[in-house]
């Protein structure tokens, strides 16, 4: 298996991009990544996108988007695993390069979510739940995560303040990220005083609806220097993918994210790393409870310690293990198919020392964790500066 490097990163401003279509925002991010890598042709394009059919009435994205940047003819594929689609697209590109099937791969993620109203967006997202066991009975994602939060609270004594601390921290980070959707300072009391969505989750415990795209370019590590010269490059040290039951009813323990644990174990083994080796991480905080549970499943904190760690500031910029320096899904936004790729983009920038005001000093090893639905799928990637 060949070693694989990330040689280009493309991010755009995320938000309610009413004036732009899916193909436009995708092309902006894709071209930015190609420019960053200094190339204009690739062997393969991968597209992570959850539900263009429901959000914009368009399927067959892989070909559509290749054509959009003048690359009709190139190999292209769309990958779907709900909100983990982006990191699956990354893993698909990584596997192609590692296996020698492709040399240059443009990995992209995109979702255009604001062309439909709130009810239709909620329905589209809800298709990531087990429709027969969950969705058709009326529950939506805030309700599913609220149940997980309640069990976590009952098992471990996790508090609403601890959940709120995650939102406050991620919004503080997002203020330092020019691409973030919501540049606003949010206090713990703001979160606790915001509208209750699904007890115990308040409005400000939830990530937003976002239009956005992100892209990175992959190449074999031994050829990376041909493109970037003698600069530091970031290599993909570990990649783990795992599944869990989609339906919460079929899980043994609602306070654990089994798919994250398994994906992390596989990524750590591949990279020869342990949780304590990680300097910075981007994790899937679709709801504040998700970040707490993810930091436990990734082995950063013992079960039940994720909440107290967040409240004590251990995951803030400048502290023990900065989590979501980009602002996370909470502040940066959550265009579901793009999120996993944007996490890779953020950690790449961090390891290259190019993260601006939100730079984690001396970060050499970073991790990303992306998750589908209520944890029915998860990927973990470990990246290293070399």
């Amino acid at each position, binding site marked *: 298996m060949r070693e694989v490097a990330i040689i280009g990163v493309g991010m755009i401003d995320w938000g*309610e991009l*009413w*004036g732009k279509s899916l193909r436009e925002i995708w092309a902006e991010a894709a071209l930015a990544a190609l420019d960053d890598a200094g190339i204009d042709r690739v062997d393969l394009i991968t597209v992570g996108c959850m539900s263009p059919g429901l959000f914009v009435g368009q399927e067959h994205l892989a070909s559509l988007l290749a054509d959009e940047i003048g690359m009709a003819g190139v190999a292209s594929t769309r990958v779907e695993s709900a909100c983990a689609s982006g990191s699956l697209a990354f893993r698909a590109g990584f596997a192609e390069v590692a296996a020698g099937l492709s040399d240059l791969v443009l990995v992209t993620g995109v979702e255009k979510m*604001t062309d439909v*109203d*709130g009810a239709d967006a909620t329905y589209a997202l809800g298709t990531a739940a087990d429709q027969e066991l969950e969705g058709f009975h009326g529950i939506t994602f805030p309700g599913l995560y609220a149940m997980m939060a309640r069990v976590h609270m009952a098992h471990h004594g996790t508090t609403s303040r601890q959940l709120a601390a995650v939102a406050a921290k991620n919004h503080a980070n997002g203020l330092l990220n020019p691409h973030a959707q919501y540049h606003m300072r949010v206090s713990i009391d703001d979160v606790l005083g*915001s*509208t*209750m969505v699904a007890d115990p989750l308040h*409005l400000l415990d939830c990530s937003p609806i976002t239009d956005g795209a992100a892209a990175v370019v992959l190449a074999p590590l031994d050829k990376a220097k041909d493109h970037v010269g003698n600069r530091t490059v970031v290599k993909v040290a570990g990649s783990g993918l795992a599944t869990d039951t989609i339906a919460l009813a079929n899980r043994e323990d609602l306070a654990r994210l089994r798919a994250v644990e398994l994906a992390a174990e596989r990524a750590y083994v591949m990279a020869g790393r342990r949780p304590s080796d990680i300097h910075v991480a981007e994790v899937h905080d679709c709801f504040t409870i998700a970040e707490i549970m993810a930091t436990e499943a990734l082995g950063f904190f013992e079960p039940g310690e994720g909440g107290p760690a967040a409240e004590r500031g251990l995951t803030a910029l400048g502290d023990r293990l900065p989590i979501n320096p980009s602002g996370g899904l909470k502040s940066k936004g959550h265009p579901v198919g793009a999120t996993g790729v944007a996490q890779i983009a953020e950690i790449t920038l961090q390891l290259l020392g190019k993260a601006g005001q939100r730079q984690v000093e001396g970060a050499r090893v970073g991790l990303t964790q992306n998750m589908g639905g209520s944890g029915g799928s998860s990927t973990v990637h470990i990246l290293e500066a070399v």
Partner: protein
Amino acid sequence: MSIGIVGYGSFIPRRRIKLEEIAKVWGADAASYKRGLQLHEKSVPGKDEDTITMAVEAGRRALVRSGGVNPSAIGAVYVGSESHPYAVKPSGTVVAEALGITPEAHVGDLEFACKAGTESMYLAYSLVKAGEVGYALGIGADTSQGAPGDALEYSTAAGAAAFIFGSDEERIVAEVVATYSWTTDTPDFWRRSQMHYPRHGSRYTGEPAYFRHITSSAAGIMERAGFKPEDFAFAVFHQPNGKFPVRVGKRLGFTTKQMEPGWLSPWLGNTYSGASPIGLTASFDVAKPGDLILITSFGSGAGSDSFIFRMTDRITAVQALAPLTRMQLDNDKIYVDYGTYAKLRGKIRMGE
């Protein structure tokens, strides 16, 4: 020759429903709606109040303040509303007949979501300016619709404002200094024929619709007419809720003090075509001679009409001749519960 408003009047129904009463029925968080929309209560039309009757009431008050304009001298009547009682058959004919304006008059109904009121004003003003008629009456009136349980239900209210335009200098109370309209095809809010309630594009109704059109129209009229926000005594903006008009006004550089008299929505709700025109009447009620007043409406679909008025010496003589808008808003209120509200708004399915 100056053209301006010679008489104005408003009408607000006495009935009110509190936001908490609506939220209670739908299990919604009243506190967050109050905070988010800055709404406390809204007017509710009674059983015998609709767009036509409210337009007539406001029109009568405008006549009272007009310094004796003979209704039969009014050559045009326009009623702007999105709740005309009939789909086919005009509101304007009933209004014109009731006010004694018929038969020698040009009459029409207008619809442009929430800006049909200022449209009627613009047409009335333009016909007088063109010399086609001596006086013209423009009215904005609505018994706004909002689907039960929808966010709109917390704001949709009822009210009317009427303005008689003329070129008769000794009668003018507010001279038209400038007008300016700004319109695009922006589908943020709509109701197709046969639909009972309107639909809206949620947050899309904000920045690309309301804020973009109002700021463009208001900034445009000030630039063309050579005024700055500090030149105005008062400014009135379309008010779909309590929050938007203040935000858009501040963005344009106006102060709370300038907007305060015309900012009625926290206690009135959104009277659609009546919203900014009623706010204008409330500003006229407290204006002094020489005051400059800006009004910018907004109608979904979407467009904004702006007017700049300069008050004349006669304004202080007519203010007290008819019920002041703020007095109608603050006094003699009858609070209704949701059941009564549902009955009055025709939300209860009756036996055949």
